[in-house]
């Protein structure tokens, strides 16, 4: 079986698609990458960790779609590439330095604890969002980054909602303030993030929820006033 991997090595000036013949069928993308590395080319570079879909380190694009390598079956002629909109360090390894920035900018953490009775329903409200494994799949799938590199991105905003909806958080308003610029209104609601999330988180709906909350706090949709401002009616540049 043939698989193709996008190789990149700045030091050796390599930037090419390389084909590998692999024996293993019925195995995962990660197993295949490991097999190539151990048996054919030990310079093949990729991240991996738990191999059970929870550490979030092995996200790549398989035939253009973001996947966790450890949970995705390999098929003939598959093309494995690094994630998009981030700097590639080597082969499938991308620079994750931006993650800290997109999480700290909107203060995606508890700022001030307040004691509240938490019901199972309250906890359920933030259950899905707090399953995020920061695999970066949604970020790579998001077309907004084509035009706006400063966009906070899907996982950052889902994490903001997780803390805004957390009854323990006393300062939820400030988070709402911080996501108005390069945040919720920049999203095109294309839903790519929701499709690719391996944890079944739905950042698109989370962003719509944050928009509703923002309206309640007196913010207005900056797109609503401008011509063709139908971004939030589900306009989708990718046609999904």
């Amino acid at each position: 079986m043939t698989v193709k991997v996008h190789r990149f090595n700045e030091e050796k000036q390599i930037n090419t698609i390389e084909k590998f013949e692999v024996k293993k069928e019925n195995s995962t993308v990660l197993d295949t990458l490991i097999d190539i590395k151990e048996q054919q080319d030990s310079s093949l570079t990729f991240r991996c960790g738990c191999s059970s879909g929870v550490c979030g380190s092995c996200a790549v694009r398989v035939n253009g779609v973001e996947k966790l390598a450890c949970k995705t079956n390999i098929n003939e002629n598959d093309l494995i590439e690094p994630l998009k909109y981030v700097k590639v360090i080597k082969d499938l390894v991308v620079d994750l330095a931006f993650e800290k920035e997109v999480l700290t900018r909107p203060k995606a953490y508890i700022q001030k604890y307040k004691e509240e009775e938490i019901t199972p329903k309250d906890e359920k409200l933030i259950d899905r969002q707090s399953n995020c494994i920061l695999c970066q799949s949604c970020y790579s799938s998001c077309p907004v980054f084509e035009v706006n590199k400063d966009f906070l991105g899907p996982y950052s905003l889902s994490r903001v909602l997780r803390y805004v909806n957390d009854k323990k958080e006393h300062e939820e308003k400030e988070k709402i303030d911080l996501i108005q610029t390069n945040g919720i209104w920049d999203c095109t609601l294309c839903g790519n993030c929701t499709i690719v999330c391996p944890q079944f988180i739905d950042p698109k709906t989370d962003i719509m929820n944050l928009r509703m909350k923002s309206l309640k706090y007196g913010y207005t949709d900056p797109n609503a006033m401008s011509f063709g401002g139908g971004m939030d009616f589900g306009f989708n540049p990718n046609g999904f």
Partner: protein
Amino acid sequence: MVDVLVVGSGGAGLSAALNAKYEGCEVLVLSKTHPTHSQTSQAQAGINAVINDQNDSVDCHIQDTLKSAHKLGNETIIKDVCQNAKDTITWLDEIAVPFSRNEHNQIAQRQMGGSTNKRACYSSDYTGLKIIHTLYDNCLKQDIQFLNEYILLNIIVENNEAKGVIALDITTGVIKEILAKKIILASGGYGGLYTGHTTNSYATTGEVINIAFNAGCKLSNMEFVQFHPTTLINSNVLVSESARGEGGYLVTCDGVRFVDELRPRDEVARAISKKLQNREKVYLDLRHLGLEKINEAMPQERRLAYEFLGIKIEEELLPINPAAHYTMGGIQTNEAALTNIENLYACGECAQHGIHGANRLGGNSLLEIIAFGKIAGEHAAKEAKKSMNPSVISNQLEINKSECENLYDYPNEINFYEIKHELGRILFEKVGLFRNEEDLSAALEKIELWQEQYTKMGIGDKSKCYNKNLVEFIEFKHMLELSNIIVNCALNRKESRGAHFRNDFPKENEKYAKQTIAYEINQEFQLEFEDVV
């Protein structure tokens, strides 16, 4: 130069970092992976604490832990951790870990094997994931500095004082010296040595423990490796103990139960292993729990079973096998998480704090990493404030640089990846659930041979930038050395106790109710038994 340097960014490392930061210290976290990629994310079932005296008591928690430790648990430390467990949960709850709630709006708790009560607080079956991410969020809030994707190469120790570390920046290939007043090792265990037979992350290779040993640290109880009874067949993906805690059965292909599912992990794993040795398949039967209960209590397991095996656990039997899961042994510490080297702490799974002894209770490891992370972080920070900046005389940096440079020139005649798989298989077969003198000796012989052959191995990737091949080759050297220590410890303990089961000495022997200590004097390997105090 920093006040407190934390090596490792799992639950123990981040707990240590946060607590040191709360004390007002400058904290730096150096980590081989990104923080949220750590193995803590894999912990599913829960974290033990008595939070409601009406149904449970701290004394029961202490007794359960002591019983599971088979006389190798340190009673004073266990008491301390169990008594403070409620505060540990309160802290996690207040920094926003979203613990599941019960119908009375209290933190929900579930039953775990070996526990007399429902004592494990949980967040569905993503407890570890939600804890590590919440800790990470809090680290960002506290502006804690990270050096991600650095592998530790050495600890600088002069006159029995730790002064800093040497580490390789994986991304750039540059080797750096980082000095610190206090160093906390929080690098995880060594379950990853059992390649192909482990639930552990590919990153859990134990090199920091071996580096600590080479730097003069005492290691303790290294022969005690816990095998999780239920992992998905072949892929060894963990099926949490919550599956049995919530009422799942272990059955053979004809649907017959053969073991009390809530016995401690070592007993259950051995019972399963015996069936497998007789070529009988073993399954986890969750069908009677019903879809609603499964979705509520173990959504992750349902998903993993489907994704990895195509099995719907509410309808079908789930084939399982045991795999290396947790390592009780590690760097010996005292009650303040200090090692025998000044300024050097260890916490979490890389350490041997005296809590788990011969066998760990489910739900006690998350408790240990958070509790001892706090102890280490606070103690190190308070002491750092009183300490002078370290000054280093030796030239460890240059030594490590040239050692690393030499690795590029190794001939690469033997594929070390193949040996790594072979090591995993040998360890699982001969240093696994059932052990005996002959098997252990044969394993040791193999390991020693591979250690001799290390210079014939090598790397194919000669680049500097993000050389994972080099990183794995460095890890592998430590894996071999650590395996050697483990087998020696296992050979030396001529009895069966907890997770260490010897077919040739199947009974617990009072003479061995002591902890194993391994250390070096003048590069001579020393092994002795020490009373548990």
